[in-house]
């Protein structure tokens, strides 16, 4: 798995009522297998809606979602089967915790998948390790944790399901820089361990995208603005501005310095430092 393709997908909330709201319009893209694709866009552009549709929690109002070439909604009864292969971490997933201990809560997903107790234990512990939930936390009640710890526990709950495709909706929103790096880094480490699983990472932080995403999908008001590699997007400040986003400061500086021969679309400070030093040495 899992080649995911959106074909002219449209989605309208509360269709045919006065509260009708068209969240996605004629959206088409394909997620490249084995890559981290970032989904970026301004608040309310429909990012979370894409995640929900991808997991088969709602049915697109128009168009199709193909997974491995098969329509997700071909047999509505089978959607649950496909959902088991996709791990979706919701935006602010803390509220989904409910068990007595964090360990049991992380085990909820794998248990629903019908894994054996031994497998569950291994899955829970390895998932907890990747996102930095220590042994002491595992024994605690999820309601005694801090916000950031709860977020980690919730993400571990999805990683433990060992999904073939991982969808993360703003996994680091509202965390301190260290927490952001820990969580995103942990997810990437997990992905590498699992032979480069496909990941869809939703965020509006271009800094995070610079570090973690291979490809980017840029949405604007429910429509596709651009789909390409992260580098390509970082070379197009006009596009990023149109989407209501901002490039990282370092990219803006180096893009302005392109007269000095620094290539456009620098993503990180380290990369910028190398390029600038090269110019200074010569």
């Amino acid at each position, binding site marked *: 798995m899992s080649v995911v393709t959106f074909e002219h997908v449209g989605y309208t909330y*509360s269709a*045919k*009522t*006065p509260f009708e709201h068209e969240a996605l319009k004629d959206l088409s893209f394909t997620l490249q297998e084995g890559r981290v694709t970032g989904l970026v866009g301004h608040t309310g552009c429909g990012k979370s809606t894409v995640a*929900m549709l991808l*997991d088969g*929690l709602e049915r697109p109002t128009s168009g199709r979602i193909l997974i491995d070439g098969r329509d997700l909604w071909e047999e509505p009864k089978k959607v*649950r089967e496909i*959902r*088991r292969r*996709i*791990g*979706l971490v*919701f935006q602010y*997933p803390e*509220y*989904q*915790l*409910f068990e007595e201990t964090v360990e049991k809560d992380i085990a*909820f*997903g794998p248990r*629903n*998948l019908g894994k054996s107790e031994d497998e569950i234990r291994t899955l829970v512990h390895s998932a907890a390790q990747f996102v930095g939930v220590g042994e002491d936390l595992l024994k605690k009640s999820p*309601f005694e944790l801090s916000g950031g710890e709860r977020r980690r526990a919730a993400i571990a*709950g*999805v990683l433990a*399901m060992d999904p073939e495709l991982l969808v993360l909706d703003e996994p680091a929103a509202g965390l301190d820089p260290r927490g952001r790096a820990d969580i995103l880094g942990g997810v990437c480490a997990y992905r590498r361990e699992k032979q480069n699983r496909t990941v869809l990472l939703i965020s509006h932080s271009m800094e995070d995208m610079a570090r973690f995403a291979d490809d980017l999908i840029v949405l604007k008001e429910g429509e596709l603005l651009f789909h390409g590699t992260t580098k390509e997007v970082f070379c197009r400040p006009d596009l990023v501005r149109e989407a209501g986003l901002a490039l990282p400061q370092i990219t803006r500086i180096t893009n302005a310095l392109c007269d000095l021969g620094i290539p456009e679309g620098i993503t990180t400070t380290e990369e910028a430092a190398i390029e600038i030093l090269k110019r200074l040495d010569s």
Partner: protein
Amino acid sequence: MLKDVTLGQYFPGQSPLHRLDPRAKILGTILYIVLVFFARSFPAYAALLAALIVLCAVSGISLKLILKGLKPVVFIAAFTAIVNLFWTAGEGAPLVEFWIVRIYPEGIYSAIFMLLRILSLVIGTSVLLTYTTTPMDLTDALERLLKPLKFIGVPVHEFAMMMTIALRFVPTLVEETQKIMNAQKARGADFESGNLIRRVKSLIPVLIPLFISSFRRADDLAIAMECRCYHGGKGRTRMKELHLRFGDVLFLFSFAAFGVLLYFSTPFFASMGFYIK
């Protein structure tokens, strides 16, 4: 599933019915309910249904939404109609008779009337009140109407505030439930299959987070209200004062006149043989 909860939901609009003073609408609704129970002749019912249709048309709410709002009562209405159909004994010979079932013409009449009564009750109250009045307006109006009860020690303002808060959080809770259900579904939870016990058990992962977030929300709200110096109803002024306008008075008077007419015409129609029961 949860999206179908339209009962008691406000649909924004600009119709005359939306703009009517909420107090006039509450009184009108009470009058309407009384009328539905007093109307016992065909002509009276026809007049009432005509009034209902006019109200629906004026409200500008689509027929589809009105019918959708009936979903929760369909079962009760059908049940009542069926009970009436089989259990009403008439004076003449039964129309159908086999085994223990006897259906009389009177049974058919009362079944139809029961059905009409329940449906017109629900449609009327929702169109006149809940679909066209914001919950805030509704509680404001109730508070104003019940104000006299303060003198006998009823904490009217506190009740109104409790109701406002409860109504305000119904859609939020529905949305939250949907969100939590989705999150648990994404973790492989199954709410649709299995026997009753399994299904009830499968709701635990939804109910616990829901309770916890409700308590937290209640706490937050209480703190937020205190921070803004809320201390109950004493000496509180309102931002939006309700003012009865000419149109509101006209609506009430014409509705009342219609009711009086309907009430006094009943004996007259009855004497002409239109009476039921």
